């Protein structure tokens, strides 16, 4: 039962962006996004520049845009929030296409969409070009406390094991004719989660004991 290399968002290819040290990529992401967040919302050319820089990095990385763009759906719930801002905000009203809305609210909503989308695109670039183990060693090099990185390492190591376990449990209940349609069925799902917790906890104990018996001390 070997863990697969890579993870759901990783796109395997060889490029200067893939080869770059992970700690530099994390620093670049944090620095880039701080710049984006600090940029006043009226400086539209600056945002165009950020987007151009990101697209350049993505094209150098060899990750196709049709791989990256569909994966931006994670931000959809926040687009809804941004769409409501012009109507809920205070300030002078303007008319757009015959609908009255708040001018500062419209600006802020637009800025949120721009900054949020740049953030998702930049994070996707990191995720698509960095293997989990590279990211972990990058975080260690950035002096993130070892205890924290160790927990992350164990989480990533067992992520597929535990999610597969959950998937098998769902197949088991599905194959017995169960289908969850309403809150009346929550008890069954919750019992699955309870069993998953017991199995995960016991797996943690087994892993820990196995490591102790091999001389692990920390």
């Amino acid at each position, binding site marked *: 039962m070997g863990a697969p290399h890579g993870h*759901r968002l990783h796109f395997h290819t060889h490029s200067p962006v893939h080869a770059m040290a992970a700690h530099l990529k994390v620093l670049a992401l944090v620095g880039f*996004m*701080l710049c984006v*967040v600090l940029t006043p*919302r009226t400086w539209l050319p600056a945002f165009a520049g950020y987007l151009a820089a990101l697209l350049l990095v993505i094209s150098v990385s060899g990750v196709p845009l049709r791989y990256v763009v569909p*994966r931006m759906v*994670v931000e959809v719930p*926040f687009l809804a929030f941004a769409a409501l*801002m012009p109507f*809920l*905000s205070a300030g002078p009203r303007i008319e757009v296409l015959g609908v009255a809305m*708040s001018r500062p*609210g419209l600006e*802020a909503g637009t*800025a*949120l969409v721009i*900054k*949020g989308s740049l*953030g998702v695109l930049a*994070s996707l670039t*990191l*995720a698509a070009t960095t293997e*989990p183990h590279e*990211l972990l060693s990058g975080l260690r090099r950035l002096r993130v*406390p070892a205890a924290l990185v*160790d*927990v*992350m*390492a*164990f*989480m*990533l*190591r*067992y*992520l597929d094991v*535990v*999610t597969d*376990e*959950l998937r098998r449990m769902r197949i088991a209940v599905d194959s017995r004719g169960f289908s*969850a*349609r*309403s*809150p009346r*069925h*929550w008890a069954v*799902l*919750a019992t699955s*989660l*309870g*069993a*998953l*917790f017991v199995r*995960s*906890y016991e797996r*943690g*104990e087994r*892993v820990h004991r196995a*490591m102790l018996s091999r001389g692990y*001390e*920390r």
Partner: protein
Amino acid sequence: MPDGFLNAPTSLATGAVAAAGLALALRGARRELDGPTAPMAGLVATFVFAAQMLNFPVGAGTSGHLLGGALAAVLVGPWTAVLCLSVVLIVQSLLFADGGITALGTNITLISLVGVLVGWAVTRVLLAMLPKRVGVIAPAAAIGAFLSVPTAAGVFAALYALGGTAPLPFGSVLTAMVGWHVVIGLGEAAITGLVVASIVGVRPDLVYAARPALAARPLQLATAPR
């Protein structure tokens, strides 16, 4: 929460709060898990991640999922829970592009610090008032889970008043956020109560919040009639 919701000074301030909370959690988790923590905390974090993936149908084609702060606190103790939820948020931000990197401090502060600690505090107070029996743990956890969600939403509204990027009036943000999250909190309470009840039923020894009740339980010896 993505990038760009809160301005940079507020994001940096919540980042500092999150870092301080994580430092406390790393020390506290060592005490709760009794020694080396990485494998146990890692597996609990994986469980939280998987639990958040499971969709609970609400009806009419919509569904919700667990946040898991109060649940994790009741199962493994508050500091381990803060540690595990924070790790989940960090991994989601860095490897799944879910949650902005500059919003990471805010997400950790709201979901892991406020969510876990409020859920745990409420559960703990209720358990102190109720009789020491394992049967009361699931209802107490459900109430803790219910209150933790709108509280976190209220803290978000306060942060938005301090460093929000749109001139939304504080009152309406607070009403909308807390109102909506009361509904989410009801779902969180139901799922948390059901999951805790199912674990307390089979393995109460694994539930952190059940330790006092189990310690108070007298040893019973039963013999079968001949």
